[in-house]
């Protein structure tokens, strides 16, 4: 049993990447603690993949520094950094068997065939593919191919492991299953993992920390719950989980908190620097309840404009004076229909004032 190498940390210091006139990554700084899984999350074109590739060494920053394990690796080719990568398309070498694929990195760095084979077989066992060594990639299913890609990267015992949207080519069901496996593997081996995805539920499910990127900059960085419960901007509130943006008012503004008026409800909440007067309030769909029209707890009144059944929940769109409200309701027993007049109550724990 070979001893595991130490998991390394990653640091970006004021990194900018330009392609001609276009700026793909603008003055980005962050650090990834060793042994944690950090996700770079954002829509297409936000700069997350470019950032990942700069950690790998497949792209070089135009400005700034990249440090891995305390060592300045800016300018170094991928082979000299202690990272390995799992690609979106898996990039398995089609003319090599699974075993040859997995041992590739070891063979290239000069390890003896016998040692390389042993290590490769151990890595395959770790991803649950014992006995698959002699197959060709074309004979494997998508999920199996992905595991071979993971084994291939793993066998080098890298200080940092990178995943570039590894699940996007899989069916919806397999995606959930594979992400659990990746997370379990990371925790079991204590690896430092940087993971890129555009799927926020994936990010929430597996990360120790999430870095949300938008338009080449970091929008917010924090643990999944922090981002979900305390989004710093409208963008993050809208991107992470579902969130309604309703019109409300801020009154009696104190140093940290103020009174938020939403319809007929009054709640005291942190104001995040917003000024008195009209504000935008982020409201989580599951924090809204449908109540009888005369209920005193009701904050808003509205009409149902859409109703959808999702198996475990009902989703409604309700037109109200504060805006269109999207509600997720666990009771599927007596669903409302389009056109019904309803009243909405809100739970304070699901509200957040948006700073700007």
């Amino acid at each position, binding site marked *: 049993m070979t001893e595991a190498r130490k998991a390394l940390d990653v640091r970006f210091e004021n990194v900018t990447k330009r392609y001609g006139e276009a700026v793909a990554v603008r003055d980005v700084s962050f650090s990834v603690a060793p042994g944690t899984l950090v996700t770079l999350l954002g*829509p*297409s074109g936000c700069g997350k993949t470019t950032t990942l590739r700069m950690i790998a060494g497949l792209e070089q920053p135009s400005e700034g520094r990249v440090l891995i394990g305390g060592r300045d690796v800016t300018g170094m080719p991928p082979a000299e950094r202690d990272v390995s990568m799992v690609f979106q398309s898996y990039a398995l070498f089609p003319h090599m068997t699974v075993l040859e694929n997995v041992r590739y990195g070891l063979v290239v760095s000069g390890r003896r065939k016998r040692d390389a084979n042993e290590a490769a077989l151990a890595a395959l066992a770790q991803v649950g593919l014992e006995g698959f060594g002699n197959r060709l990639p074309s004979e494997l299913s998508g999920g199996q191919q992905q595991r071979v890609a993971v084994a291939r990267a793993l066998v080098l015992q890298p200080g940092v492991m990178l995943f570039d949207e590894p699940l996007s080519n899989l*069916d*919806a*069901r397999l995606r*959930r299953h594979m992400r*659990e496996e990746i*997370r*379990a593997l990371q925790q079991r081996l204590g690896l430092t993992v940087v993971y890129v995805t*555009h*799927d*926020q*539920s*994936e990010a*929430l*499910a*597996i990360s120790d920390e999430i870095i949300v990127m938008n338009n080449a900059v970091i929008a917010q960085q924090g643990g*999944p*719950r922090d981002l*979900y*419960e305390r989004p710093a901007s409208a963008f993050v509130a809208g*991107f*992470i*989980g*579902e969130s309604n943006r309703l019109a409300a008012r801020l009154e009696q503004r104190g140093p940290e908190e103020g009174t938020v008026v939403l319809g007929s409800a009054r709640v005291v909440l942190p104001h995040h620097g917003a000024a008195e007067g009209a504000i935008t309030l982020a409201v*989580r*769909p*599951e*924090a809204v309840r449908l109540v009888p029209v005369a209920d005193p707890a009701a904050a808003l009144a509205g009409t149902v404009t*859409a109703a*959808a*059944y*999702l*198996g*475990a929940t009902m*989703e409604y769109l309700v037109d109200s004076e504060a805006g269109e409200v999207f509600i*997720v309701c*666990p009771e*599927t027993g007596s669903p409302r229909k389009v056109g019904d007049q309803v009243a909405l109550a809100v*739970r304070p*724990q*699901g509200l957040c004032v948006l700073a700007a």
Partner: protein
Amino acid sequence: MNAPPNGVEVDAVSFAYGANVILDDVSLAVPRGEFFAFLGPSGSGKTTLLRLIAGFGRPERGAIRVGGRDVTGAPPWDRNVGMVFQNYALWPHMTVAENVAFGLHRRRVPRAEVARRVEQALDLVGLEGYGGRRPAQLSGGQQQRVALARTVVIEPEVLLLDEPLSNLDAQLRVEMRGELRALQRKTGLTTIFVTHDQEEANAISDRMAVLDGGRIQQIGRPVDLYDRPANRFVAGFLGTANLVEGEVARQQEGLVFRSAEGIVLPAPDDVAPGRALVALRPQALSISENGRAPSIAGEVRRTEFLGGHVRYAIEAHGLTFYVDEPHLRGREALAPGTRVQLAADPEQLTFLRP
């Protein structure tokens, strides 16, 4: 009085590619104006079925009817169906307006009329004023809307969508599926929609057909398929399901289900005794403090924070159960290793033939 003909009827259709059987005796009927989904994993035959309805390929056996008319041998251009392809297939050498107008020119619609209807179609999909652009200048979501406009403008009998959302970002996917639904409601077009994502199918279809291995597993409304799956495959495919095998036997307090691992659950009276498979949805189980029966003892293995709720993977009696608990600010998730009692809601159990 005759009932109006169905939008689409598939009658005992079989299709094979060489030695591989892709579709095996498939029959279904989609009433006019319904939003119908073909749901299934890769290789289940759902796309092939859609293409047969469009006219690409000819079934070995069986018939296909569109709007009451038998179109089994007819080429695509004679079928009055509209299709949106997975990669949108917008013609790069034409502008958006020319793309949308294509089908109208074929039917010899006068020029002024063409222009008007193109405008209308673009308005409908939210792309007013985009007529002069070229496909290469549009984003993925916009391209998809042009593809929709192009098909909708010819007022086809049936609208066929081949995994239209799979090339979009997760965020956009959720937005666009709502828009698709709204569009269908507005136009009243009979629509068939192919997907492998059960959440998508659940969210927007009126009814759906679940396919696996070239056969129809079950047809019905999403809620019916979810609550009363016909077999193990449907139970597992539509949302997460915890599946337990065991026996139902009559005891003095009524019918009782007992699994090999020792899990005991009450069974409703209408379940036949004998071997059975129980499906429990994650929301049918809850973590209870006081061990209110029927309960299962277990230990938390993993937690997944999913925003509105937390999903626990709990090991009990050697099996893994997924349990969803709602999340609100202030409540901490349980740590792995915590011993818990799971309470099963008897109303929410589904019994299947194994």
